[in-house]
């Protein structure tokens, strides 16, 4: 006899009404089951409908969306047939939610404990004292530091990894049968992610709780899910046990997702011997920081004594976790944040300290591409205006010559020329990042500083951007400084890698042999923390607890 499923979804259809009044179908008839104690993963790119499906299991749709058809049942109750009031009774007690960004999901003006035990208060599950005792127990089970007192703090007083575990405690306080995890580790650093994943896994297994794990990251999902559902465009592409999906995918789209994980060997650009030895960028004892400057030193010193050289035609990767100073380094080199000590040399020529003191020629040589393509493009300017501006500024181009150059630039980044009259808002994320790249190329630079340019993109789109970068390098001979927290992207495009920790370069490594050659303990910790496409990776991973305590910012 098989046990009846805990969750039954049949022919689920969810539609949305756009601002213009147009109706769009987001979820186009999705059916699946979840057995008691089973954890399933919803995998897909942004826009695939994975979060929409997960939220609908709680009877909730975001503003503008509505369930149009199908049936969702949880245990014996049919969620789709309930009134809003009945659904509210279900939330927190039967099914609960762990959000993507715990930092945003905690109310900033209330103490953590009050928010963790709120479910008990809303549903009158137990007296407050008992709820508090239970919360402390959960804090302990989730390996949080100082479980007795952490609840009396405000959300801004604990770290991101701790908040994410606290949000899991918040979800578990009402003894739910099903917990929905909505990309809970995406915003965390890799060394933090491990601890959080482990905590989630053990708590769920101990309580025999079912879970829905929403993610775009197959390697993370491989560690925690029993079964994987691959989604695209609101439809299920493939469904199967984790091992089968990872090792014997049937659907072409699943294979495409897995292919994005395959390491792509980077072939260094062939440069004439004499050219190669000239450094295109040389950074000497660079110090930079933020805040009011006193005695020639800023209040918050971020970069401490950074030195390196980047030769023509080669690419430099900079890796490290949030707060390690990677972006600050790029900003200091670009002159956005003037360094207070040390110097930046390009082609052997010392650059002005800040943007104001740099000549047009100095500015032209180093261009920057930012992480968030959305915010880096002026939403009121057409693509043509965005690309024409640097052409006029650096090269004095006007009229027909400028138009021709804009068309060339769009062609270089593989965008159709017809796109030039569109606004950034009408483009997809990948297209916007291509426009950003084209804008940097408009200056005809020697060096492009790429600050996490693929982090906000889906894996398949990101892989295409990396291919484009390599192609441009072959054609134009430019060099990249590539900042990322994702080691596999760095491996795919860089020749050399700097590992940064707390504003200092702890080690410089050849990209191809990072894991083999790393000697600094932090580099080793960082490299070993990258999830692998192997279901046994997390269970088999052993990290020196002393190292973790010393370097990981949990």
């Amino acid at each position, binding site marked *: 006899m098989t046990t009846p499923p805990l969750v039954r979804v049949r022919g689920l259809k969810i539609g949305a009404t756009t601002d213009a009044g147009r109706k769009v179908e987001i979820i186009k008839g999705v059916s699946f089951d979840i057995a008691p104690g089973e954890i399933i993963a919803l995998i897909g790119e942004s826009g695939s409908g994975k979060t929409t499906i997960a*939220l609908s299991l*709680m009877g*909730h749709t975001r503003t503008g969306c509505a369930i149009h058809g199908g049936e969702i049942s949880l245990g014996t109750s049919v969620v789709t047939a309930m009134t809003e009031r009945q659904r*509210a*009774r*279900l*939330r*927190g*007690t039967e099914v*609960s*939610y762990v*959000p993507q*960004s715990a930092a*945003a*999901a*905690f*109310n*900033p*003006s*209330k103490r953590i404990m009050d928010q963790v035990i*709120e*479910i008990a208060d*809303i*549903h009158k599950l137990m007296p407050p004292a008992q709820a508090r005792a239970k919360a402390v127990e959960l804090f302990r089970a989730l390996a949080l530091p100082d479980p007795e007192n952490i609840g009396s703090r*405000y959300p*801004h007083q604990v770290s991101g990894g701790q908040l994410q575990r606290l949000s899991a405690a*918040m979800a578990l306080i009402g003894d739910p049968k099903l917990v929905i995890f909505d990309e809970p580790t995406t915003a965390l650093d890799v060394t933090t992610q491990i601890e959080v994943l482990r905590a989630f896994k053990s708590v769920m297994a101990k309580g025999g709780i079912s879970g829905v794990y929403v993610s775009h990251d197959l390697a993370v999902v491989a560690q925690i899910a029993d079964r994987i559902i691959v989604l695209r465009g609101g439809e299920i592409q493939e469904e199967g046990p984790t091992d089968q999906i990872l090792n014997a995918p049937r659907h072409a789209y699943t294979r495409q997702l897995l292919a994005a994980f395959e390491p792509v060997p980077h072939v260094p650009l062939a440069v004439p011997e004499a050219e190669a030895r000239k450094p295109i960028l040389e950074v000497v004892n660079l110090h930079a920081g933020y805040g009011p400057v006193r005695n020639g030193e800023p209040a918050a010193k971020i970069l401490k004594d950074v030195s390196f050289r980047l030769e023509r035609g080669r690419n430099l990767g900079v890796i490290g976790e949030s707060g390690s100073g990677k972006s600050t380094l790029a900003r200091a080199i670009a002159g956005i944040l003037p360094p207070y000590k040390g110097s930046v040399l390009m082609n052997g020529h010392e650059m002005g300290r800040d943007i104001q003191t740099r000549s047009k020629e100095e500015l032209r040589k180093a261009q920057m591409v930012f992480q968030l393509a959305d915010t880096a493009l002026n939403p009121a300017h057409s693509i043509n205006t965005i690309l024409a501006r640097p052409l006029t500024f650096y090269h004095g181009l006007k009229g027909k010559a400028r138009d021709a150059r804009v068309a060339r630039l769009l062609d270089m980044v593989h965008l159709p020329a017809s796109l030039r009259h569109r606004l950034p808002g009408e483009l997809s994320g990948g297209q916007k990042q291509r426009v950003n790249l084209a804008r940097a190329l408009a200056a005809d630079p020697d060096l492009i500083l790429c600050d996490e340019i693929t982090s906000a993109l889906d894996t398949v789109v990101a892989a295409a951007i990396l291919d484009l970068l390599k192609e441009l390098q072959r054609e134009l001979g430019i060099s990249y400084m590539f900042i990322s927290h994702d080691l596999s992207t760095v491996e795919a495009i860089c020749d050399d890698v700097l590992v940064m920790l707390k504003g200092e370069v702890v080690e410089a490594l050849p990209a191809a042999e990072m894991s083999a050659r790393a000697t600094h303990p932090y580099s080793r910790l960082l490299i070993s923390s990258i999830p692998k496409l192997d279901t046994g990776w997390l269970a088999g991973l052993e990290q020196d607890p002393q190292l973790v305590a010393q370097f990981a910012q949990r």
Partner: protein
Amino acid sequence: MPRSLLPWLLVLQRLGIALLTLVIVSFAVFFATELLPGDVAQILLGQAATPEAVAGLREAMGLNEPALQRFLGWLIGMVVGGDMGTSYVNQMEVAELVSGRLGNSLRLAGVTTLVSVPIALALGIGAAMWRGSIFDRAVSVLTISVISVPEFMVATLAVLIFAVWLGWLPALSYGANVDSITAMLKAYAMPVITLSFVVSAQMIRMTRAAVIDTINTPYVEMALLKGASRSRMVLRHALPNALGPIANAVALSLSYLVGGVIIVETIFNYPGVAKLMVDAVSTRDLPLIQSCAMIFCVSYLALITIADMVAILSNPRLRK
């Protein structure tokens, strides 16, 4: 420095800024009045006065001294002895002229505040809570129409309906019999209704916007996913984080009640400070103008400063 003192340090800093603003405003008002054509001596003596007589009076009143000297004299008198000066026109102490009028103004403002603030907050929060409902739309239409109708229109209509047609309320509120509660209610009803209309509309709109802003945050969605009711989401999660902007909207609206009520005071013949100031301008009575302007400024600054302090003290990041 202990962390718990940080919010109070910010409050102190805020008070210092308010004081500085006050000095700058008094300076600006003084010299703006200096720019007005004609002077008090000419107006006191009338058109027929000989130039010699006007010059003599000007000399006697000390008007020939440099403007800066007169300003500093007034400022020092004000700060040291609380002396607001003497009216040029009727030689009465300004403090005495103002005090009765200020009492009237504050009473009217106070009653209006008591009536309008609770109603406006309730309507604003209610509209945000049931956004898109019939109630929300009705409130929105109402506030928009109130904002677009000028207050003299509201006041005149109120007089026409309640005093002339229905005869329920006296048309003039001052000098009416205020011995009993009902009589007082009657006397204040019309100016208070008119003013409440004017100040509530903006408060309702700002409150609604501020609450909706916080309702759209992930932590309010989180409350929803914990099974919280609508009222719990709004009152416990959204509202505490919207206090800062709401306090500022309320302060801005209320500051209008002291200085901006000239039309209402005129229509209902209510002797408040605003009317006093207009009269003072027409006679170029500098000390009186200056004092009235300072009263408006102080009340405005006081309200805004209180609102800022609410915002500072409600910020959890500054709390221990």
